[in-house]
């Protein structure tokens, strides 16, 4: 493969600048929505387009008392974060915890560049600037994790829906977001109906529009108004922690 710089993923581009060996690596993959992309132990993935979602490993089905909560809701897989063209899936490989962290699933149709984990870690570790960037990515990931814990506890389905729609729109340009209600429901860990209700409210307020299975952000300001502060907080965090090194 000719050494090329990947301009479609900002993070990979920066890493390739610091670690020239990375320019000669990587397998491009085009995957459909729902494609399972591994446990984050044998490869790292850089999305070029589309969204990947991260699913915690080893979720054990509940074996306890029946508390009357909807069984479907309790045991279906839940995603905890998204990765787009400014990020990387497979931080578990960098941290050496292999498959203990999360598995990776395509939330929408996506194209990614796949790099073998061991080689990636080895090449990046040799360059101080590469290590520094990865450390910042880890720090940002921790900050996101903390925020997600709080967001899930305190913010409403509508607020959280707006947050993720804004996040996704930031990374999709003007293109409609190929994010289904089912996908959103998984991301928020709620029943699909709850997303449906939030979506109706947002449509009524003309903040979003649907075209086939894609959500179009019609009124960004309105979404901002209805979103929880987590959107801004993490945007600011990315800006302070990762962006300066990109």
């Amino acid at each position, binding site marked *: 493969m000719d050494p090329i710089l990947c301009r479609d993923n900002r993070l990979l581009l920066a890493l390739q600048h610091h670690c020239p060996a990375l320019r000669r690596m990587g397998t491009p993959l085009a995957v459909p929505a729902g494609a399972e992309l591994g446990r984050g132990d044998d490869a790292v993935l850089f999305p070029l387009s589309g969204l990947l979602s991260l699913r915690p490993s080893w979720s054990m089905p509940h074996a*306890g008392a029946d508390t009357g909560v909807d069984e479907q809701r309790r045991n279906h897989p839940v995603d*905890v974060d998204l990765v787009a063209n400014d990020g990387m899936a497979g931080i578990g490989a960098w*941290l050496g*915890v292999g498959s203990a962290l999360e598995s990776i699933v395509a939330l929408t149709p996506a194209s990614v560049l796949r790099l073998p984990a061991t080689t990636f870690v080895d090449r990046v570790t040799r360059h101080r600037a590469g290590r*520094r960037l990865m*450390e910042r990515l880890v720090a940002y990931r921790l900050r996101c994790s903390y925020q997600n*814990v*709080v967001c899930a506890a305190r913010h409403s389905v509508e607020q959280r829906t707006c947050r993720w729609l804004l996040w996704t729109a930031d990374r999709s340009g003007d293109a409609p977001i190929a994010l289904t209600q089912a996908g959103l429901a998984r991301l928020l860990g709620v029943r699909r109906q709850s997303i449906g209700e939030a979506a109706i409210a947002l449509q009524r307020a003309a903040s979003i529009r649907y075209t086939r299975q894609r959500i179009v952000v019609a009124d960004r300001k309105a979404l901002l108004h209805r979103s929880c502060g*987590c959107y801004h907080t993490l945007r600011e965090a990315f800006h*302070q922690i990762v962006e300066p090194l990109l």
Partner: protein
Amino acid sequence: MEERATARREAGGSGNRLLDALLRERPGLRTYFEPVQPPVGHELYADGRPATHIYFPTDAIVSIMVRLASGNASDVLTVGNEGLIGIAVWLGMDRNLETAVQQRAGTVVRIVGDDFCRVVAGSRRIRELLHHYIGYTLRFGSQTAVCNACHTVEERVCRWLLSAADRRGGRHVDMSQAALADVLGVRRQTIGEVALRLQRDRVIDYRRGDIELLDRTALETRACECYRTLREVYRRVLEPLLG
């Protein structure tokens, strides 16, 4: 766990499992130990302020929190002698990633960030251990986010009580219902209802500020799977490296 911590301290251990593993690689780290005993409620460091130290609780318990846009601080996770707080300095960050508040009285061993980084530099094993600890923290966060979104308050209370009791190694958790409501991000009234139910079923007994776990089996049944899952994650990700 508390008895073991005491025994380890007497045998030359630090009282913190993670720190003990670091000491095995770099015994010189001990020179930089500064044991402190902040009062309950004291803020060890704040989100966004300059990152200066790394901290290893021994018998203290520390709460990690983030500031919300609304201005409130919200609890994210709790760390005792199984972990550390303030990893920001090791990640080369100028500023803290979170706020840390003393939740339970006791000792925290703190080390100046620059000293820590200098002493541990070059140790592959320490890098591996700290990376694994971060991996564990991320996994813990993911699980807790899912828990907060999907599980009932009762399940979350049971999970929390079990973890808190595990750290102390006994059957008591000294925590008021108001504090528990704060930590879980739910209304005090809801905690009250759950506590009443658990007490009625003789799973716990509570008196002002003290909760006694009467029936561990029942608690484990009524807790969400997060309790077992995270114990398993700790066992697989960290135990092998702690020695």
